[in-house]
C-alpha cells in the first residue's frame, strides 16, 4: 500500500475530495457465509474416519503460497467512498528445513466508482484503478461491500498468478492456503494441495456431517467431490490434525483439496501423512495455529513484515 496515506489524503483534499480515515470491516480478508453444499462421496458409501498412518515428511522441495490484503477509505467524493488497498502474494519454498522466499508480487489499488476516482484527478494515478459498478445509485455501504469483494478478487487473482508462475518453474509440491478451485489451472495441477481452514461451507449433512466433524486425530474423511467446485472440479477430504475434545468441534480440522488425478485413497493417505507431519512446528501464537501450517504462516508473516506501514 502506498506508504504515505496522510499525504495522499492531503492531495485528495486539495482535489476537492473530503478526506476520511476508515478501515473497513474485514478489510484484511474475505467474509464467508455458513452453508451446506452437499458433496459427492467418492470413497465408500458413507462418511467414516480412516486412519492415515504415521506422519511422514514431505519430500523436498515443498513450497507454500499465501496472500494478504489491506484497505483503507481515504476519502469521499460526494457520498462515494474511495478505497486505497494493497494485495500481495508470495511463495516460500522449503529445502532442507529452511524456508526461503521464491516469488512475491504486490498490487497497489484505488477502488471506487468511476466518478469518485475521476474526481480525485491525478492524485491516484500511481495506483491501479478498480472501478465499481455505477448502475445503481450511490450508496456508501453497498460500495464498501463491493470494494471488499473486488479486493478479494484482486488478491485471489494475484495468488493464482504467483502460484502458476511458481509451478511453471518448479517441480516441487505447492501448498496453498485455501481452495484449489480458485483457478482451473490450479485445479488440474498434480503438484498442488489446497488446505482450507474455514468450514463455513460444509459438504455433508445428517450422520455424515457428524462423522465428518467428529474425525479423530490422525484420521481423514473419505474422498469427495465438492459441489461448489463445478467450474474447476477438485477432490477433497478432511483431516484432523489435533484432538478436538475439550476444545472445539473444528479444532485441528482442515479440508484438503487436490486435482482429480490425485484423488485416490493412496494419495489421500500419503498427503494426509505429510500434512500431519506439518503440525510441527506449530504456528502459535496465531489463534488459528491448530489449522494453519507453519509454512503458510511464514508466508503471511513475510508479507506482513515487508508491507510498508501506511502513515495515518
Amino acid at each position: 500500500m502506498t506508504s504515505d496515506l496522510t499525504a495522499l489524503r492531503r492531495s485528495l483534499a486539495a482535489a476537492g475530495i473530503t478526506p476520511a480515515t476508515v478501515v473497513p470491516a474485514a478489510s484484511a480478508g474475505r467474509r464467508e457465509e455458513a452453508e451446506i453444499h452437499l458433496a459427492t462421496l467418492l470413497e465408500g458409501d458413507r462418511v467414516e474416519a480412516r486412519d492415515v498412518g504415521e506422519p511422514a515428511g514431505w519430500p523436498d522441495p515443498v513450497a507454500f503460497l499465501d496472500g494478504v490484503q489491506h484497505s483503507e477509505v481515504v476519502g469521499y467524493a460526494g457520498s462515494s467512498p474511495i478505497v486505497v488497498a494493497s494485495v500481495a502474494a508470495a511463495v516460500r519454498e522449503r529445502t532442507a528445513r529452511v524456508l526461503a522466499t521464491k516469488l512475491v508480487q504486490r498490487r497497489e489499488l484505488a477502488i471506487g466508482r468511476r466518478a469518485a476516482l475521476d474526481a480525485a484527478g491525478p492524485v491516484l494515478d500511481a495506483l491501479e484503478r478498480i472501478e465499481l459498478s455505477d448502475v445503481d445509485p450511490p450508496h456508501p455501504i453497498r460500495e464498501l461491500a463491493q470494494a471488499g469483494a473486488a479486493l478479494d478478487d484482486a488478491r485471489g487473482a494475484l495468488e493464482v498468478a504467483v502460484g502458476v508462475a511458481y509451478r511453471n518453474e518448479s517441480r516441487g509440491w505447492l501448498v496453498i492456503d485455501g481452495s484449489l478451485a480458485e483457478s482451473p489451472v490450479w485445479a488440474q495441477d498434480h503438484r498442488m494441495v489446497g488446505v482450507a481452514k474455514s468450514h463455513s461451507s460444509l459438504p455433508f449433512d445428517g450422520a455424515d456431517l457428524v462423522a465428518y466433524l467428529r474425525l479423530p486425530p490422525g484420521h481423514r474423511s473419505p474422498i469427495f467431490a465438492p459441489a461448489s467446485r463445478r467450474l474447476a472440479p477438485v477432490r477433497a477430504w478432511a483431516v484432523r490434525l489435533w484432538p478436538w475434545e475439550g476444545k472445539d468441534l473444528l479444532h485441528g480440522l482442515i479440508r484438503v483439496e487436490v486435482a482429480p488425478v490425485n484423488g485416490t485413497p493412496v494419495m489421500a493417505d500419503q498427503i494426509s501423512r505429510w500434512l500431519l507431519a506439518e503440525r510441527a512446528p506449530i504456528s502459535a501464537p496465531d489463534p488459528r495455529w491448530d489449522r494453519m501450517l507453519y509454512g503458510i504462516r511464514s508466508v503471511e508473516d513475510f508479507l506482513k513484515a515487508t508491507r510498508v506501514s501506511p502513515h495515518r
Partner: protein
Amino acid sequence: MSAPIGRVVATELKPSTPHQFYFWTATESEVGIGAIVRVDHPGRTVYGVVTDGMAYADLASPLHAVIGAEGDPSVVASEPTARTEVRLFLAAVLRQVPEEPLQPVPLGAVHLATDADVELALRMDAYTRSERPTGIPVGVYALGGHESPVLLDADFLLGPEAAHLNITGVSGLATKTSAVEFLLSSIFQTFPTHRGSIAAVCFNVKGPDLCFLDQPGEISERDHALYEKLGLAAEPLKKARYFAPFKADGVNLNTLRTHEALQHNTEPLVWGLREVLDYAEVVMNRDDIDAKADAFIDFLGERVVGREFTDDLLRGKPFRVESFADLEEFFRAIFDFMEAMGRGGEVWRTHHVATIRKVRNRLGNISTRAKGLVIDDGAPNDLPWGKFEDRTVYVVDVAGVDPLAQDLVFARCVSKLREHLERRDLGVDHVVVFVDELNKYAPADGPDTYVRKMLLDLAERGRYLGLVLFSAQQFRSQVQRRIVGNAGTSVFGRMDMDELATPAYATLSPAIKIKLATLPKGELMLRHPHFTQPIFARFPRPAMLSGREGVERFPPGAELPFADAVARQLKQLDRRVTTDAVRALVEGRPDLDVRRALALTRRTRPDDALAFFSAKLGRRIGGEVVTPRSTVRPVPTGVDPYQ
C-alpha cells in the same frame, strides 16, 4: 566494500539512541560479544561494539514448543520446517562520524570492522596518524580470523595526560604477569623518543615470576605473526638488571635467579642505617609512631647518623654513627649514662628513656626481620639512582623476604624514584613501577599503612613526574578505590564471577561479564581513555622465559658455604679470583668482618678484587695462649668460723 552482516533495527520498545543500537544478523554470522561493527548511512557512519546478544523464535510461549513437539524434545530436530529465529545484537556506540550533531544511530547496514574501522572506532587515529605518533601496541582486536592492531596512547598510559595501568584477573588464568611483560616489551620498543627516555622498576613479589625477563623464550608461529602484525620484535627485554637481598648469612642472594649463567646482572640489594632511617615509619606500626618517637627519630637523622656527634656526658670522644652497630653503641652509651644518673636520669636531651628504648627496639628489630636486606655494618648496595638507563628494566626480587622488608623496599625505592624524578636527575624521564598483588599492599580495608599512602600518592600525583604505576591484583574490588580509579588504563583478564557481581562492575552487561568469566589465556578486556567502551584484545605470549620455564632452564644454584659464596661474589668483580684463595683468606675470620670487606670491595670495584678484599679484611690477629694467673690460695682451715 564487503557485504553487510546485519541491519540496524529500531522499534518503539527497542529504539536506537545516540549511545546504543540493535541490529539483526543471519543466524550464522561472525558477530559475537565484543565485535566491533560499522553502521553505514548516508551522511553518517557509526562505530559500535557488541555488548549483548539475544536470540528468539516466533513463539509466544515455551508451551507452544512443547505442544508442537508433543513433549518430545528429540522431535524438534526432525520437524519439517526449522522455526524462524532471530539473532539480535545490542551494540554500544564507540564513535559517530560526524561527531556533531550527536544523533540516534540510523537504520543502516551493519558491517564488520576493518583495520581502518578499528582505528577510527577506537579514536586511535588521533595519536597514530599525527606528526609525532604516540601509539603503543597492546594487542590485536581479533574476530573471525581478522586481526587489527590495538594501540594505547603513550600520553595517556605513561603521562602526562593520564597515566597508570591496572590489571585484574584470577590467578593462573588471567595472564596478568604475561600481559605486563608483553606491554613492557612493547613500551621499550615503541615509546617515542620525542617523549623522552623510559625505564621500569619491577618488584617481584612471588616465586620466579619476573626473574627471567632478559632470557628468550619460545613462542608459537601464531604469536610470531601477532608480533609482526603489531610491528614488534619478538625478543626479551634486552637490558635488565636484577637486585635481590641476601639471605640471613649475608652472602647468598635471596632469589631464585642464582644460576651461574645469570650472575652477570644479578646484584645484591643491601641497605644500611642511613637508607633505612628515613623510612622508619614504614617499619613501625601506628601505635609506635607518636610525636615523641617521631621527634627522637628526627633527632637521630639530623644530628647523629652520618655525622660526628659529641656529648661529653655520654663519653669523651665523639660518636660516628654509620651503621646499626654504631647506633647500638650510641644507644648503649645513653642507657649507661642514664643508669649512672640514677633517680632523675629518665630524660636525655628532653627525650624520655621510654621513648629512646622504644625507638631502639623498633630500629633494632629491622635488622633482625630484614636480615639480608639491612646490614648491621658495612657498605650498602643500591639501585643505580641517578644512573638509570633508557629502556632498561630493574627488577627488585623481594619474593623471599619478610613482608616488613618488602614494605621497606617498596617505600624506599618508590620514594627515591620520586625524589630523583622531581629533581630530574634519575637518568630517565619516565619510570614504570610494576607492583603485583596490589590488594596486599593497598587493600580497600585495613590500616592506612605507609605503603598504601605511598601508592596512593603515586597514583594521584605520579603522572606529573613521569612516575607511572602498573599494578596487578586478583580482585580489583579489594584494592583502595582511589588507586585503581586513578589508573587511566584498566585491563581485565579472566575474572571470578563473585568479583564480577560486585558494584564496581555494574556498568558491564551480563554478556560481557560471562565473556570475562570465560576469557581464554592471552585475551584481555581493555579500558583506555580514548576508547569509549571496553574492548577485547589478544596479545602474543611474551618472548621471554616465564618464571616456571626459567627455573627449569636455569635451576637456582645450591646455597653455597659462606666462603664459597664470598668467592662467587668476588669472581663477578674479578674473574681471576679463585675459591681456594678466598677460603684461605676468610678462614677463622668473623663473618661480620668478611661481609664488611666484601661490601667495600663490591662498592669500590677495584682492579684487583682479591687484594683489595684482603686488605680490607685486615691483618689476621694471631691466637694467644692464656695461662691462668697465679692466685692466693685460700687458707685451708677446714673450720667454718661462723658456725
